[in-house]
């Protein structure tokens, strides 16, 4: 994973627009958040291999970045994105990590199932 460049992500979002895609979207504090700090609630959610079709997708902000995908009836949104898998050419695999390298958020799009 390497720090993402917004222009590169925008180019890739444009290429994936207008087709059925498999989505993995996740946000997590980790299961140990409350155990390590009782003032901090543990919370996470993920959805894997949901099918989405967006008409328009963009990246915004300065690092960490936000991505919004406009679908026919709604939106997909993620905040806190910092990294991209630089080796992937077809799939778009983005993640947001904290200063300790821990995953906070993941947003992934692919024509094939994850």
């Amino acid at each position: 994973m390497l720090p993402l460049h917004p222009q590169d992500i925008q180019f890739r979002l444009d290429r994936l627009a207008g087709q059925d895609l498999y989505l993995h979207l996740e946000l997590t504090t980790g299961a140990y958040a409350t155990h390590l700090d009782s003032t901090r609630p543990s919370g996470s959610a993920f959805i894997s291999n949901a099918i989405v079709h967006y008409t328009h997708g963009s990246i915004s902000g300065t690092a960490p970045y936000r991505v919004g995908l406009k679908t026919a009836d709604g939106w997909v949104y993620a905040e806190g994105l910092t990294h991209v898998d630089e080796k992937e050419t077809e799939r778009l695999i983005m993640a947001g990590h904290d200063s300790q390298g821990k995953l906070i958020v993941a947003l992934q799009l692919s024509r094939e199932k994850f």
Partner: protein
Amino acid sequence: MRAEDQVAMNSKQTQHERILVVFPHPDDEAFVAAGTLAMYIEGGAQVTYACLTLGEMGRNMGIPPFANRVSLPAIRKEELAASCLAIGIQDLRMLGFHDKMIEFEDQQRLDSMILGLLKELTPSLVITFYPRYSVHPDHDATGVAVARTIGQLTVAERPLVHCIAFASNHEKVIGKADVTVDVTSFLAKKMASIRSHRSQFQAAELVGNRELTDEEIRNRFGTEQFWTYRFD
């Protein structure tokens, strides 16, 4: 526990011929039981580690992050195999459940998998997490499934069950651990096991990014504790 009792207990523990370990995540074995398992194995035990998931949803991705949600399972699989090799575990079963989903799994599927292992291996000791006192929902659900499955065997068929507990309130409810194992003689193997989990061990709350001194390693990892599960 008096020192002589501990020695007696340790030498008795090494008599187990066949041990079944059931944990949900690659690295659970490293932090909570690697020294004890290495000790049993040196005493001649055959150890089967049933690892339910590949830790696909873990947050630790290396520092700086070198893994993502897609590449993580394959990385954790290699790390797990290396950890088992370091400990000396002879039989690793990766059972293909999904990380974070154990509590939602079909109970019958989970229980019949555990029962199958018990019938096949007839272990005298099973090591797992203490039901409801192990913080992570996967840990708790794993302990619950193991206790539920073994509880359905006849008393004569039941192996000894040693559980790990670390919820913040656990001692208030289940008391102090009744099994304390001094693993200082096996720390080299235990640390090799922990370090095999390259995507995980750097985490600040575990080992951090610096080298620990021998004394810190002894204090932090030199003792392993278990609670004998009571079925009554």
